């Protein structure tokens, strides 16, 4: 057994499954909760869940209505249900929906991969090495989030033009990465801080370089943190409108879903049914990503905020 394996094993044996696991104390308290309190708790949570999903549920309901039925003064839950809205949107009656979908997936995917990777290396360096400039870099990440980014569209446009990236996917991806990096780095640094440094040292004893330690040992252990970061980066890029409309080429083929849909909102103000169907189609990938990472969300996000 290598030193690394030994340390990883003892660590996993030693540390209780605190992260993400249900709090053990609750079992004791739950037994003593009166039936009335349980009913109240469930009632409150059901109401909150209802409020959380209702607006989206209503879009879903509307997406099956013909456009004119979406404009009733006394809306009904079901009214001549049809899937025409979906088939027409997918068939490209309102612009090349599937092309836009592909563009959005490509841009959000690249943002996620690049953003998470470079945030992770930075976060690892900040977590493990005490190099000059470390604290000021983190502080400047905080300051970066204070500036209203939309105001930077003109200078950014000029900048991308200078580098020949204006109108290109990679230019937009880099801008998205920049907006996602500060929080991603902060979160991952918090997560890496919770991974014992013994593991790094054991890895070094086994002859791994610091990069090898990061890539082969720490990243796999930081999966929950990576999952939240990826979720955050994906969402940053997936639904964004402002930069996408400014920095992508003007032709219809190059648009993202969010931008494409905006043009269709302004042209066809009354097509609520179609708009609802398109919204559901756009929300789906984000919800899928969410479902994949949701188990990691709590533990992944916790480490960012909890020191020590």
């Amino acid at each position, binding site marked *: 057994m290598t030193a690394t394996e030994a340390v990883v094993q003892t660590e996993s044996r030693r540390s209780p499954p605190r992260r993400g696991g249900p709090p053990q104390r609750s079992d004791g308290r739950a037994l003593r909760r009166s039936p009335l309190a349980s009913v109240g708790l469930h009632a409150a949570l059901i109401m909150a869940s209802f409020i959380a999903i209702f607006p989206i549920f209503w879009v879903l309901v509307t997406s099956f209505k013909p456009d004119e039925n979406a404009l009733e003064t006394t809306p009904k839950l079901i009214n001549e249900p049809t899937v025409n809205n979906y088939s027409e949107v997918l068939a490209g009656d309102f612009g090349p929906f599937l092309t836009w979908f592909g563009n959005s997936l490509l841009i959000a995917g690249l943002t996620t991969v690049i953003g998470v990777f470079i945030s992770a290396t930075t976060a690892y360096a900040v977590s493990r090495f005490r190099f000059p400039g470390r604290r000021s870099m*983190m502080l400047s990440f*905080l300051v970066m989030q*204070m500036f*209203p980014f939309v105001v930077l569209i003109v200078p950014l446009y000029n900048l991308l033009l200078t580098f020949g990236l204006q109108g290109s996917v990679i230019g937009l991806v880099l801008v998205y*990465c920049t907006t996602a990096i500060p929080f991603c780095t902060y979160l991952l640094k918090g997560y890496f*801080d919770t991974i014992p440094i013994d593991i790094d040292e054991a890895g070094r004893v086994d002859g791994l370089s610091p990069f090898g330690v990061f890539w082969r040992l720490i990243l796999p252990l930081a999966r929950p943190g990576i999952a939240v970061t990826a979720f955050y980066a994906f969402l940053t890029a997936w639904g964004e409108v402002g930069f996408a409309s400014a920095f992508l080429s003007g032709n219809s083929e190059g648009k993202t879903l969010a931008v494409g849909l905006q043009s269709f909102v302004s042209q066809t103000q009354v097509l609520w049914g179609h708009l609802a169907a398109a*919204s559901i189609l*756009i929300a789906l990938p984000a919800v899928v990503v969410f479902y994949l990472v949701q188990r990691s969300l709590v533990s992944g996000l*916790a480490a960012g905020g909890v020191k020590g």
Partner: protein
Amino acid sequence: MVTSTAEGTSQGRGATAPRPWGRLGAFLHRHWYAYAMVIPVVVVVGVIVLIPLLQNIYFSFTNINDSTIANPVLDRPARYEVVGLDNYGNVLSGDPSYGDFYDILVRTLLWTFGSVVFHYLFGLVLAVMLNRTLKGRGLYRVLLILPWAVPAFVSAFAWRYLFNADYGLFNAGLRGIGVADPPTWLGQSNLAMFAVIVVNIWLGVPFTMVALLGGLQSIPNELYEAAEIDGATPWQRFANVTLPGLRSVSATVILLGVIWTFNVFSVIFLITGTNNPNTRILITYAFERFFSGSTRDYAIAATYGVLTLSMLLVFTTIYLRVLRRQGEEAW
């Protein structure tokens, strides 16, 4: 504590290694791993944020707009001039033709604190409830986090539809209970501000809830057990164990909440647009100066940007200083 060990190792290596390039070489030898890992982010961020930001600060001291900016298409050189502090003077005078700064500021503060207070309150209540053992906890959690996963413009569409005066569900409900003339929610009144704040609260609660839930799960059990042995009431346990245990997460969540909410653009932009003065906040007004109208007043937009940054810097500095005095760190 964590980092000191790593530093120890690298120092040891630095001391024994030859130093062919003198002090700089030793410095690089000692820190090159760290810098190599940081450099992609520093380059990307430096180029994409720092250069435009500096240019923006410079713009705020000029009279740049659509007719004075360089236009490569028309082969027209830049004609804007440095005007010193004029933009700041005009904006800070509160002159309505420069956006009625103090009115917008009040709305921005209302928007920010209205959102953050309720994000925190609802997030805390839901997190405490979800932290108990109960049937269906996983399902509740998924449903409650869902608003976070939905792209902002889809949620904006959903809410605009619900708030619609003629065929929105809210007004249908109001008519159903006998309100003859239900309000125009998203029109030219302060109701529009109320409506966008409601939407923003709905959007932001999941993040706060998840962060606080993580914080709750890191509070050691023993503290609760000790409190129970001491005969603490549930309220006392909440006030003396839960809340202090959440201090560190709360500090971060509130700081980020204020900074982010101050600069949330998409919600107002997508729901009431930039032409409704009742929902004007600093960032949407900057955008309005910037994009709408024939003048495209980049200089005023830039000035609003710099003012926003300055106010948040002052707030954050004070906030972090107060926290540090209490032994906390929020970032």
